[in-house]
């Protein structure tokens, strides 16, 4: 029982990371019908932005503190928001009128570009994120504990997800985003500067990925310029699983994938452990067979 609860906490934390990244996939898909393959690499940039900020300001030597961790999070979010804006402007906007295949190939190109430039600039060898959080544990139930990184991950993701939900459903900007997702031309007729809203959507999605990048490093400090590949793919699966284009679906999908992966690692025989990354795919295939639109996806026919 206690093991199960512990696994649930770990799974939720991992799932929150996937959820934060999945939100970016789903928002960009919503407004552009584009699968932003470079999104996982923006997440990687987030980790590096946090890492270099920590080094630059001597956070690795300073006493661990929640405030400094929050600061790293904010800086990384801003850096990646700017990166997201730049990518949209330089890579995606010029091919907006072109075919979807062109856009897809562009996205793959941006992804490869970021991964390779990352290896050149940051080096391909793994780095270790400094310990910026106080290493504490809080008892939850019996022998079950929650560690500070897990607490930070769960708390920050919850705040960011609620914030995004409010933005999407209770502000003019959110209405504009949803209007664009439904129909670009009609959105323009509302007087919406759609280019601006699309660019800001990239910025927000990228900032959320950056948050995930820093949060994950608080718990799993080892990272390199290719961490975005697998994690990005799983977050993408989470977005599709929940119903791509659907914000709540991205969160749900992320949590499901995170829980499933943790449970699989905890309960499958050790010989199957190398296959834990396949769990996400297995779930995806199973769900899509039953619900091709994903769990919360609408059945609205795809626009051309």
């Amino acid at each position, binding site marked *: 029982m206690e093991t199960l609860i512990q696994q649930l906490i770990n799974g939720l934390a991992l799932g929150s990371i996937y959820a934060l990244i999945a939100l970016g996939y789903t928002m960009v898909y919503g407004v552009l019908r584009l699968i932003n393959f470079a999104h996982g690499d923006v997440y990687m940039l987030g980790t590096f932005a946090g890492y270099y900020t920590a080094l630059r300001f001597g956070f690795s030597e300073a006493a661990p503190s929640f405030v400094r961790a929050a600061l790293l999070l904010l800086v990384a979010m801003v850096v990646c928001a700017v990166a997201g804006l730049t990518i949209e402007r330089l890579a995606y906007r010029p091919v907006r009128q072109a075919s979807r295949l062109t856009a897809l190939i562009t996205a793959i190109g941006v992804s490869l570009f970021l991964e390779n430039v990352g290896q050149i600039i940051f080096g391909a060898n793994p780095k270790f994120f400094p310990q910026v959080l106080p290493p504490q544990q809080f008892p939850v139930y019996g022998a079950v504990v929650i560690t500070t990184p897990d607490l930070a991950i769960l708390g920050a993701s919850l705040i960011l997800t609620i914030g995004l939900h409010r933005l999407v459903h209770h502000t*003019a900007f959110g*209405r504009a985003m*949803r*209007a664009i997702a439904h129909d670009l*031309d*009609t959105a*323009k*007729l509302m*007087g*919406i500067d759609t280019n601006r809203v699309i660019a800001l959507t990239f910025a927000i999605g990228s900032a959320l990925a950056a948050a995930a990048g820093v949060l994950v490093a608080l718990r799993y400090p080892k990272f390199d310029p290719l961490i975005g590949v697998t994690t990005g793919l799983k977050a993408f699966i989470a977005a599709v699983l929940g119903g791509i284009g659907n914000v709540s679906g991205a969160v749900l999908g992320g949590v499901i994938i995170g829980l499933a992966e943790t449970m699989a690692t905890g309960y499958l025989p050790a010989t199957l452990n190398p296959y834990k990354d396949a769990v996400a795919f297995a779930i995806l295939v199973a769900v899509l067979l039953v619900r091709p639109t994903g769990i919360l996806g609408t059945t609205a026919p795809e626009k051309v």
Partner: protein
Amino acid sequence: MSEAGHRVVDAPSLLTAENLVVTYGAIEALHGVSLTVRKGEVVTLIGANGAGKTTTLKTIVGLLRPKYGRVIFDGVDVTGRPTHEIVGRGVALAPEGRGIFPDMTVLENLELGAYRQPDRIQFRRDLEQVCTLFPRVKERLKQRAGTLSGGEQQMVAIGRALMSRPSLLLLDEPSLGLAPLVTQTIFDALSELNRAGLTILLVEQNAHLALARSHRGYVLETGRLVMSGDANALAQDARVREAYLGQ
């Protein structure tokens, strides 16, 4: 209303389209369309399926870019300007098929119409006006727009266009698929808006009704204007009667 035609004859032009040529890839949909709408007028553009009516409206509002020609609105050349800017200058389009956002509430749809309106007090006032114009809309504010009947959706589409406080309202077949009684309600509302000073450019297949409510009209045939003039005269014209009024 058409009897008031001479009242606006000398009014200055609000919208001028000059020699619009618009293409979809290799297909040329408009071969040089020129039309004028004066301040305070209701003008109808009639034409058969595929004549280019929607294309004309989309070009005016900047959703399509003409290959040649210009669009002058309120003395300013807006050709090639982005749609949000043209809307900001005072043009609103209630599009073909209504273009409602079905998953949003009626109120959210109206809020979107007022997207460029930062003044909440003005917003409330405009909302109140739309609700007075269409009491049916008022009853449904909290409802998902997709659950409304076609007529109610058309009222939302028009109300939404009004929320941007336009000086020129473009309407693309507002009577499409509606029962005659609902169509009457909508045209009554349009007449009321025009009496209050709103200039209207209307696209209709229901030429009879539209001409009866307009000052002037244009007839579009496969991308070319073939006739224009006083709405009464057009409604009496033998060719128009045969082609568009089914007489």
